[in-house]
């Protein structure tokens, strides 16, 4: 039964991808697709990479959110709430100042390193407040992110890079994704698969430190592994497409509301829903002001915030009874 739903989900995803492939200014039609060379180029150079990038980035960020929620044992965190995304942007800025012509891979590496440092800092602060209140954790994360992005904005103003940085931070813009600019995202896809492979360990780590050590898990190692996965995913996604707000927060929460908490079971769904959501937002962004485009992240910000609000209010009702 469950696999029937999964097939249905995959079916919807394929329909969305097809719509995404055929949405845009230059008209594509199935009939002449293979006879017309120009049309084939548009499809292969622009549309296919864009759709793939949407799927990869969407599912990877959702998985990163899920892992982060397990490691911090808190449902309300995700990379952009824990300062990870903001640290990655700071790293990006540092590269832009020190070595503006560095290749993508270097930018990505440094952004990931910064993301890792930021996340570690968050975890350190977290250790102090872990027993207090569940909602303190995201609050502190949001403020930490605010402080880090204040540093970034200040430095960007100083070096007069605010505009080019803004294109990245507020980004989440898939319109620049063409062949040759998205391939790094396959790495993210690989990491996501890797995360599925070691999923059980994250599940156990999510039950708490004492429990995990008790059942013989190398807790530190799993923590470090999870942190690196989160940091690398955030770093790469920031460099290639920009920030995708709320994604890692709402997708895992929605999925676990329906499916429960065993992440070996929920991970495929998290990937599916994450990719589908970003795809949908991108399609809406392309249609709503045709022929201009609105970044997927802007649409995502609006819907994501609404869904998050509903989750928060429901959670409180639920907690009261």
């Amino acid at each position, binding site marked *: 039964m469950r696999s029937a739903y999964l097939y249905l989900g995959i079916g919807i995803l394929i329909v969305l991808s097809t719509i995404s492939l055929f949405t845009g200014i230059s008209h594509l039609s199935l009939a002449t697709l293979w006879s017309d060379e120009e049309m084939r180029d548009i499809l292969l150079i622009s549309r296919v990479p864009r759709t793939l990038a949407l799927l990869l980035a969407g599912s990877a960020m959702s998985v990163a959110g899920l892992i982060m929620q397990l490691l911090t044992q808190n449902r309300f965190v995700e990379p952009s709430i824990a300062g990870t995304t903001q640290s990655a942007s700071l790293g990006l800025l540092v590269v832009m100042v020190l070595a503006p012509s560095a290749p993508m891979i270097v930018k990505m590496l440094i952004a990931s390193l910064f993301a890792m440092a930021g996340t570690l800092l968050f975890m350190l602060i977290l250790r102090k407040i872990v027993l207090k209140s569940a*909602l*303190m954790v995201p*609050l502190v994360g949001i403020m930490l992110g605010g*402080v880090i992005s204040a540093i970034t904005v200040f430095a960007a103003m100083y070096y007069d890079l605010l505009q080019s940085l803004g294109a990245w931070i507020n980004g989440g813009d898939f319109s620049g994704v063409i062949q040759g600019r998205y391939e790094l995202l396959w790495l993210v896809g690989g990491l996501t698969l890797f995360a599925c492979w070691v999923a059980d360990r994250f599940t156990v780590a999510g039950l708490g430190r004492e429990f995990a050590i008790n059942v013989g898990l190398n807790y530190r190692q799993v923590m470090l592994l999870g942190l690196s996965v989160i940091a690398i995913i955030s770093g790469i996604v920031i460099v290639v497409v920009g920030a995708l707000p709320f994604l890692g927060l709402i997708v895992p929460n929605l999925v676990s509301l329906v499916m429960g908490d065993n992440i070996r079971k929920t991970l495929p769904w998290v990937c599916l829903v994450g990719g589908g959501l970003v795809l949908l937002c991108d399609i809406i962004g392309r249609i*709503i002001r045709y022929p201009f485009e609105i970044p997927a992240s802007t649409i995502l910000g*609006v819907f994501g*915030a609404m869904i998050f*609000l509903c989750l*928060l209010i429901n959670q*409180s009702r639920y907690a009261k009874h």
Partner: protein
Amino acid sequence: MTINLGPNLSYILVRRSYILLTMIIVAFAASISTVLFQSVTHNRILTPSLMGFEALFILIQTMIVFFYHGTTSYWLFSLLKFIGESCLLVIFSILLYRWLFSSVHFNLNLVLMIGIVLGTLFRSTANLLQRLLDPNEFSVLQSRLFATFTRAAPELIWFSAVVVSIIGILLWRKRYLFDVLALGRNQAINLGIDYRRSVTSTLLFVSILVAISTALVGPLTFLGLMVANLAYLLSGSYQHRYSLPVAFLLAVIALIGGQLILEYGLNMAGSLSVVLEFIGGIFFIYLVLKRF
């Protein structure tokens, strides 16, 4: 005000006194609105801007530009429009926050979280609408929404100054009422106060102050939080006749001092709101860690 005076004295002095006046108005609005808001909500971490008031104001401004195309340039700077927007803000915020405070069973963290997410929602929606705008209209709007102290129109400054003075006098006469409100709902009712009405009227003043401050210089997230808490600390008292003026003075010092450091220490390399954001964010984390 007198640092680096050039030869063209009369012009510069006039310009600078406008900037100074703006700063004083904004300092007043930010500090007083925060202290009152904290008294009404009985805690020291909530502030109007953390709860999304300023973002709501920006959203309303954007929506007005969005639904009335073509009239932006003259419409944007007129007083009439300012008054209209403030009224809208006040109505919306009172409806919204009354609902929020009554429906969510009072859990401080939850309310704070909802406020922050609401702020994000308003900002993203405004952002979405701005993307749908004509580029010309967008640039006019954009120039209004960044926090700078040098751009407000003179007639707006004068108008705000008058409104702020009136509010100041009104509030000063009610200072003891706020002391009672800060005791909490049950005590306040016990002491014979029409609690619902007093809270609503206080929120009304808060919204007007936030509207003025945002209209003049744009959003300043942490100023109120910092000066209010420092004021409780320095005055050593929660009585409003001490905390209100002290917070106001601190805000003036923070703004003018910050701007001075920014201009002559850092060569105008950033904007004041960024510096405030940085210091304020750290301060907030500290407060939260200390108190919970």
